[in-house]
């Protein structure tokens, strides 16, 4: 996994220097989509819920740049508003996943063999259960509320953060300066707060870009399956599903929300790559 290897890259030979153009493009795309979706109520040309039963499945035109859906609603407005939900839910779930993963990772690394073994097995069990399956089961019982959705998405993605945090925290804890800090009287909590967590920051940020993409895909898959955000609230995955049967006749209903997903995910990955490079270069400068 490339994210983990970045920490060891730091001590190996430096790769050839690359221009950061991909990263800039990725960041610009992500920021642009984020701004557009946040500003959706201001920039969307129509009400995303306004039905027009006299104008169903109209192809893209000047009035409806992305066409209309099976209820005559403006697809562009729905894509913009749908992004608010998809990106918002994914962002919160990603943060939650990072907090959970790092917290448990540090406990496993510094809490002794018992905690390490217990949490390690828990992570193994979590990995053995496919995220989509866990989500289907939990949402079937808990209902498709936003809170349940966020929790399910975070539960399905904390292991990556846990693994990274545990490995790196173990590595940091074995460094001589930690021993020095302890001899100087620092408690475990202080060591964690002052030395371990700050050292994890860059890694977790890079991991978060990967987590975010995974979470966004899972969120959209759940929407596609009808278990995510419920209609009429627009959501990308749900929109892809609603146009599925009409794909040959009215491609715009599914393709535009699908394209929005691809653009965001690729953008986040490019930005994440750039971050990874930046941090590994920074690591070399330190040593």
């Amino acid at each position: 996994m490339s994210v983990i290897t970045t920490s060891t890259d730091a001590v190996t030979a430096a790769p050839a220097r690359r221009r950061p153009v991909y990263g800039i493009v990725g960041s610009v795309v992500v920021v642009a989509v984020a701004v557009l979706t946040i500003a959706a109520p201001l920039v969307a040309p129509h009400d995303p819920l306004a039905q027009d039963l006299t104008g169903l499945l109209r192809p893209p035109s000047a009035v409806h740049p992305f066409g209309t859906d099976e209820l005559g609603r403006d697809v562009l407005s729905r894509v913009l508003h749908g992004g608010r939900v998809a990106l918002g839910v994914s962002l919160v779930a990603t943060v939650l996943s990072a907090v959970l993963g790092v917290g448990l990772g540090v406990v496993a690394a510094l809490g002794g063999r018992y905690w390490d073994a217990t949490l390690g097995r828990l992570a193994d069990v979590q990995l053995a259960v496919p995220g989509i399956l866990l989500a289907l089961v939990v949402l079937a019982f808990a209902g498709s509320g936003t809170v349940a959705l966020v929790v399910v998405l975070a539960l399905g993605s904390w292991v990556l953060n846990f693994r990274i945090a545990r490995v790196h925290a173990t590595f940091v804890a074995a460094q001589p300066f930690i021993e020095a800090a302890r001899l100087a009287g620092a408690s475990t909590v202080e060591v964690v707060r002052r030395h371990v967590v700050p050292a994890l920051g860059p890694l977790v940020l890079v991991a978060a870009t990967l987590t975010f993409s995974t979470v966004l895909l899972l969120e959209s898959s759940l929407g596609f399956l009808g278990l995510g955000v419920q209609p009429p609230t627009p959501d990308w995955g749900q929109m892809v599903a609603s146009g599925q049967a009409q794909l040959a006749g009215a491609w715009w209903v599914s393709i535009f929300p699908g394209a929005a997903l691809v653009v965001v995910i690729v953008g986040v990955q490019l930005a994440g790559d750039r971050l990874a490079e930046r941090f590994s270069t920074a690591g070399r400068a330190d040593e």
Partner: protein
Amino acid sequence: MSRTSGRALRAALAGAAVLLMAGCSGALGGGSGGAGTDTDTLTLGLSRQLTSLDPGSSGSIDGDATVQGAIFSSLTKIGPDQKLVGDLATSWRQDSDVQWTFVLRDGVKFSNGDPLDAATVKWNFDRLLDPATKLTSGPALRAIIARVDAPDAHTVVVTTKKPYLDLDERLSTTTFTEQKWVESHNPVLEPLGSGPYQLQSVDLENGATLVRNPNYYGDRPYYDKVAFKVLGTEAARVQALQSGSVDAAIQLDPQSLTQFAGSDRYTTGSQWSSWNMTLRINETKPPLQDPRVRQALNYAVDKKTIASSLLGPDIQPSSGQVLNAPYDQVNPDLQAYPHDPAKARQLLAEAGYPNGLDLELALSTGTYIASDPIAQAIAQQLGEVGIRIKVTTAQFPSWVQRSYTDDVADLIYIGYSSGYRAPAERLRIYTSTYSQSHFSDPAYDALVDQLTTATSREQQTNLLDRATQEFHDNPHVVFLWPQPLTWAVNKNLDWVPRPEHWLLPQDFRPKNAD
């Protein structure tokens, strides 16, 4: 290859997977096979999973009943032209108000070669009428039929409990199997009948394969082999048509049909059907017990706009009754509740809900045409008068199971068809005692009971008009529309669409076949 572009590529692939989920159904395939070129196998799409092939089970014509219709035979049957004709019976007569005699044809055999005579028919009725067998077709027949006798091998005498004018048509969906067979086999999965086809294999979730019954007494069906495929969702139906893996499918959203308008493989079409759609109302909870709230629901929905835009330009709203012409006899004096949001708001205020109310509308996935957009449109229109709708969806089995309990959603989008037009049976579905009714209306129930035992057509018409008027004024449903019958059928096939949704293999033959 740099790591950056490698990762970006993987990310792009992951993202593309999302599009692919939809795209896989969009691939315009050019699959081979299909009856257009193959004289052996006919492949038909069913829109519901199968549950039982026992002739005593009352299954949907969209699923079980169609497969049963290919395997079994009945005393009478209704043809594609809606005319009642004999099947096992060559003739029949009404001897008195409560007694009917059916004369059976000679030499009828089951597909295993065993004979089917009057004693077999009597045994089948006894099986249905015996509450201990718990057959789902039983209760409705028990309400009508007192006893069945077989004075000789060719004569079946049916005695009804009370007068029943439409018995001959009512029995067109009652089919027969063999006692010896049922005692040694599981009729749910191993049906034995005397119809045009016999079962070769069945997988209730996915479909069934039938082969021609060599002992069939009627016209030899054209195809040797028939494969029924369960296509439980709109997407599955569209995909099967796009890949050319079925010769015929019905129950397509009108919006999906347009994709096949220019197809060189399929002919598409749409017409009225016998499926009467309503929103059934759960009146076991306070707001909906008030008739003003139920009237408000009827005033708030713009049935005309929804029907013409989402179901087809020819579909007209039901005229304020649960019956629709031309299939049903209707009360000509009734009109649809007009779309009048102001009136709806006023009725809600009078009922004590000036700030509106919250209701759940439950849908069954893929069962009724365009049900998702229809529910969204209804929700929007009800929202305009302050009725906030939460739409929930479930797979058909769990949805229908819930519909039998008082815990059913406040509103469910549901339709009924039957293989017969008997007015009393069409209205009985909406009496208080029906399994999916969650209300009490003794006045309406009494009218339907009288209608059931009417002894003349005039009396029947009079009671039908009174019952429908009563139900119109004190509605226990939101009257909607007749669901259209939509289809895509291989261009090389001759087939007459049937309003009940029968998709019977014996109805198909190649064009220009002799």
